[in-house]
């Protein structure tokens, strides 16, 4: 077994951030209120929790597989490293743009959104799938690739799952304010 513990750690951190942002996106444009910072914080936490929920079965299966077949650890690390070759620069760019969004004036904040945050949200599913392709090209076996695919599907499912939650909640108890918020993606 090679070191490389940083690979799963980096993937988990990225998945957590991605889940939190997915939760934020799912809550945006729902209420029409001007001040929504508190709801934004809740939405990030909701995204984080949903990502943990959806990804934990995959993590458990991978853990069980590594415990049952220790040599496969190297396969996972190789695949994870290949995925991170794409995900890390992508994530770092998004984080840099978010940092800029948080501290810069509104004109530059707009640029961060127009140049990076918007287009990168659009590109996110393709980048996620691209990571699996890179893992395959790195020579990952079927089991490892299946786990990588399942993880990507779970990560991409966070936002739709939360969107469905809005729909279900709105149907169960129509919100007083505002909106029909019940639009799935």
């Amino acid at each position, binding site marked *: 077994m090679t070191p490389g513990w940083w690979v799963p750690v980096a993937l988990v951190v990225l998945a957590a951030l991605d889940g939190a942002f997915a939760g934020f*996106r799912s809550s*945006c*444009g*729902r*209420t*029409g*209120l*001007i*001040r929504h910072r508190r709801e934004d914080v809740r939405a990030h936490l909701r995204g984080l929790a949903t990502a943990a929920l959806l990804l934990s079965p995959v993590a458990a299966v991978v853990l069980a597989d590594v415990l049952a077949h220790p040599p496969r650890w190297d396969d996972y690390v190789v695949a994870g490293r290949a995925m991170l070759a794409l995900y890390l620069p992508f994530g770092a760019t998004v984080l840099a743009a978010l940092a800029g969004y948080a501290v810069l004036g*509104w*004109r530059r*904040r*707009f*640029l961060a*959104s*127009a*140049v990076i*945050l*918007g*287009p990168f*949200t*659009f590109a996110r599913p393709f980048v996620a799938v691209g990571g699996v392709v890179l893992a395959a090209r790195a020579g990952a076996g079927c089991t490892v690739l299946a786990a990588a695919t399942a993880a990507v599907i779970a990560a991409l499912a966070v936002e739709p799952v939360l*969107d469905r939650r809005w729909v279900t909640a709105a149907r169960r108890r129509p919100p007083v*304010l*505002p*909106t*029909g*918020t*019940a*639009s*799935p*993606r």
Partner: protein
Amino acid sequence: MMISVDELTDLMVATDPVSGARLPVRLDAMIAQLRAGGQNRAARLARRLPVHDGVLIAEEIDALQIRVHCELQRLGEELQLPRRIAEWLLRWRATRPGEPIRVVDVGCGLGHVVRWLAAYDALGPGADLVGVDLNRALVARAAELAAAEGLHCRFIAGDALAPGVAGDDGMTTVVISSGLLHHLPATALPGFFAAQRDLRVAAFAHWDIDPGPWTTAGAWIFHRARMREPVSRHDGVLSARRAHPASVLLAAARAGAPDHRPVCADGPRWWPRLSQVLRPVTGTAP
């Protein structure tokens, strides 16, 4: 016969121009109009709208309109739309220090800009903030949202440029709008500006999309990334395609309100001007 390209949100609601009463909208007529304009995708989307006896269900269409405008507000936040407008208003107001003003947002929708200006007290004391829209459901929700956040602004259902609706009591009035102009055909624009001249508004500033290939591509990407409602996605991209170039806006403003010395400029068509993706046509009374 002139064939128009329409946004779904424009066709979903019809009101009597005199009484403002809601008129029934027949789905087959709507689809026929879309097909006549070659808008087959829009016609397919229209087929999914809620219908009873061939007529769109008003309550569900209202809920859809509110959802669409909530999403639109989110996009407006990213485009920093209220800040752009506040910056212009503050610059204009600096020429009249201490003078009370009324800001009338025409076609305000959910009143995002007006509520933002109120929430952040962006214009300082002495600013009367009014949002006006023909759509009563949107105006009612705008008023509810303002009340929920304790904001000092008001909303009126009606034609903002009709005398007496948004106030022609002699108070210094600035008429603004955002994303409204592309809903008007080019032939109606001179009349739109002339109505503001007739109301003797002190200034107008109407923000809309700077049209061009980059803007259309950006609108497509952002609406795919940010919007959930298929109607939002369709109309958002169409808005960018329908937007009037500065030359058209300027000619219309000069024809309708020549004394206001209108100003509007687009950048080079093939060079992206990201910071000016929304730009105003402005005019100030002498």
